[in-house]
């Protein structure tokens, strides 16, 4: 399979088959241009929750009894879903979008993004692998 978009369609089909759930991205509204207050930490940003799917959500590090270890999770995300959001919110790229996301709402938990990697085949990105850290990390 090497046609244009074939990898993306295959990944979408697999993500749907393996769960195909949706999560919410907690995205901050754009900054105010030239506002020094925001730059020095006086701003109060507003947020919008944007639906992202299909995704597969899974835990990648099981608890081992070490109470200081934060749970880590992984989100496998469809490129087509990411591109829809990148386009509608006018971000430069998927990396910039995830860099700006304040959290990912999964069921009742807000998880933080710690890494983003791309999976490619035949020079085409077909999947984003988003590393997340659990809410228990904030309570440590």
């Amino acid at each position, binding site marked *: 399979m090497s046609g244009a978009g074939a990898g993306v369609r295959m990944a979408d089909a697999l993500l749907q088959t393996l769960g195909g759930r949706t999560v919410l991205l907690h995205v901050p509204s754009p*900054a105010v241009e030239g506002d020094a*207050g925001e*730059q*020095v930490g006086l701003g109060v940003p507003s947020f919008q929750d944007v639906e992202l799917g299909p995704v597969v959500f899974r835990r990648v590090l099981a608890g081992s009894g070490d109470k200081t270890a934060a749970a880590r999770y992984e989100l496998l995300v469809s490129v087509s879903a990411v591109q829809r959001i990148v386009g509608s919110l006018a971000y430069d790229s998927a990396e910039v979008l995830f860099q*700006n996301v304040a959290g990912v709402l999964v069921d009742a938990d807000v998880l933080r993004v*710690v890494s983003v990697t791309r999976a490619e085949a035949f020079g085409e990105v077909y999947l984003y692998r988003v590393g997340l850290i659990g809410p228990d990390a904030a309570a440590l």
Partner: protein
Amino acid sequence: MSFEFEDVKDTFYLALRDRLAAGAPSLQVLVRGVLRPAVVVAENELPGSAVDGIAPLNCFCLHWTSVRLDRGLSVLGCVIRYATDGSAGAAGMDRGRALSAMDAALVSAVSTAPQNAAQVTVSEAAAGAAIETTTGQRVFWSDVALGDAVLRGERVERMATVEVYCYV
């Protein structure tokens, strides 16, 4: 007269931002959809934007670390981290040159006389816009000390330090 460490930090940031904008206007960073001079204070941004691995490239990230008082002089330690992976056109082979350009921009912004600025207090107005008022004091800073460059994957990073002073 009350003393606010925050005013010292804000004054140094604003001075560095304005000097970088004047001396290296091509260095810019996109923060929440808005282009700014390529300097951010990590503690003033959303937590996600300071995450290692996806932190902004080609941008000076200020981290306020130490604070000490020495016979009426407050000394604030500032660590400035920056990294670049060069340009896409050169397939990253120019990342060393890009880092040198950032070194030069930082040294010029910090070490060009005068190494001081009028201390300002930034406050929010009712309409939401920020107001900058001077306090009558001055904020001083040292020369910048550049640490070793570290090659991490396709990016090359450096950590620099500056001490910022103000009389209490």
